[in-house]
């Protein structure tokens, strides 16, 4: 059981930044009213992404060798993930520093599309054959949901009052889908083979899983349904919930090699 803290920080930070720039780009062209503190928003996204990339280096046994990940873009999703996140940081930073009234339309769209691609690369990186529970579309879905939840939540700090209701609707939808997916996934794993079932059992037996479900998804959803707006404290709770969810993702994933000599 490994917590993989650098990877927890990297993936959640990157997905939060991606959600933020994607939501910001869409928000710029949707609904009426002023854009809000958009330069601060993009600078914040760039800083969060930079922190994530920095954290990812601590995962390496030899961080100075990080530039060599460029060597295997052909088949290694990890290479694509690292390069994609690096390019995205450059695009977000350029977009932030060239803001005049709003984000340059082309840069905004490039950042949003590239961000989605990076989430896809991450999903592929963390769905190897060795983890039957994850050797499917679920990591991509989990990561996309993190971006969809943290994007509008963090954007609420920067958006104008006129656009808060739109963000609240997006967050409510993302939380609802997130709650359903995170409740269903372990239930489906329980019907799988030995190793997949062990992953499901590890999840449902963990207090961290239920804390994440209740405090990170159900309670925020109830708050959103009741208040119809994003309270200032809620994004903090959501970030904590996503970090807890990612800890679970790495800690309780059971590897096929743990059951060599047993029935799969």
């Amino acid at each position: 059981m490994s917590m993989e803290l650098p990877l927890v920080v990297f993936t959640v930070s990157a997905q939060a930044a991606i959600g933020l720039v994607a939501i910001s780009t869409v928000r710029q062209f949707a609904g009426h009213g002023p854009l809000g503190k958009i330069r601060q928003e993009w600078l914040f996204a760039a800083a969060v992404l930079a922190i994530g990339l920095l954290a990812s280096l601590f995962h390496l046994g030899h961080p100075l060798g990080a530039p060599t990940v460029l060597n295997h873009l052909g088949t290694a999703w990890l290479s694509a993930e690292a390069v994609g996140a690096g390019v995205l940081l450059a695009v977000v930073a350029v977009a932030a520093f060239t803001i005049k009234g709003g984000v340059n339309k082309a840069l905004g769209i490039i950042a949003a599309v590239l961000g989605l691609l990076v989430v896809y690369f991450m999903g592929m990186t963390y769905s190897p054959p060795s983890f039957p529970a994850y050797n499917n579309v679920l990591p991509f879905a989990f990561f996309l949901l993190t971006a969809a939840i943290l994007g509008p939540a963090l954007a609420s700090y920067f958006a104008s009052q006129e656009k808060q209701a739109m963000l609240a609707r997006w967050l409510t939808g993302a939380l609802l889908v997130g709650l359903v997916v995170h409740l269903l996934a372990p239930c489906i794993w329980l019907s799988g083979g030995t190793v997949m079932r062990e992953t499901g059992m590890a999840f449902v037996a963990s207090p961290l899983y239920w804390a994440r479900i209740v405090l990170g998804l159900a309670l925020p959803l109830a708050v959103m349904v009741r208040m119809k707006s994003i309270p200032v404290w809620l994004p903090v709770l959501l970030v904590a919930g996503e970090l807890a969810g990612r800890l679970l993702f790495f800690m309780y994933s059971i590897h096929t090699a743990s059951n060599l000599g047993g029935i799969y």
Partner: protein
Amino acid sequence: MTKQYAFFVDAKRCIGCFTCAMACKNQYHQEPGVHWRQVYPLNEEIYPHRERAFYSLACNHCENPTCANVCPVKAYYKREEDGVVVHEQDKCIGCGNCIRSCPYGAPRYNPVLKKAEKCSFCYQRLDAGLKPACVQSCPVEALQIVDLAEFDNPNAVQYPAGFPRFTKLNPSVRFILPEQPRMVTRSDV
């Protein structure tokens, strides 16, 4: 088919003595706790007898190795002459992606070097005309080396119970299934 060396694990012969695993240790002096070859007892669900049966497993030198595919720094390559998958440790940056991704758990983490490492099929010994250390050491000849291009044993299986089935990887290993010991009773005499 081109030459592809494979481990041939005869579970009918294996007595679980761990000599193969220790021979590997003696050859490469891995750090404490790091094993490139390990001997796995079969669960009672698979081998329901109070005697135990074993699979001696290391890297399977797959036809389509996940470790090589996922390594971001190209620290793995597959030798054309015999299909052995080699890890070049000097290129490794210790990202652990191969360790996480190989479904057979072959790459291991060296906590001192902070890099991955795995069974090399003793390719230096192969090149010198010798058998791998594990094969050389097996006292009951339960572990052998075969060339899959020529291997034709109708009793051998690739995916016995207790060994995960990953057809996309096509692991280069073949097994002879263990047999239940014959119970001799008074009526047999």
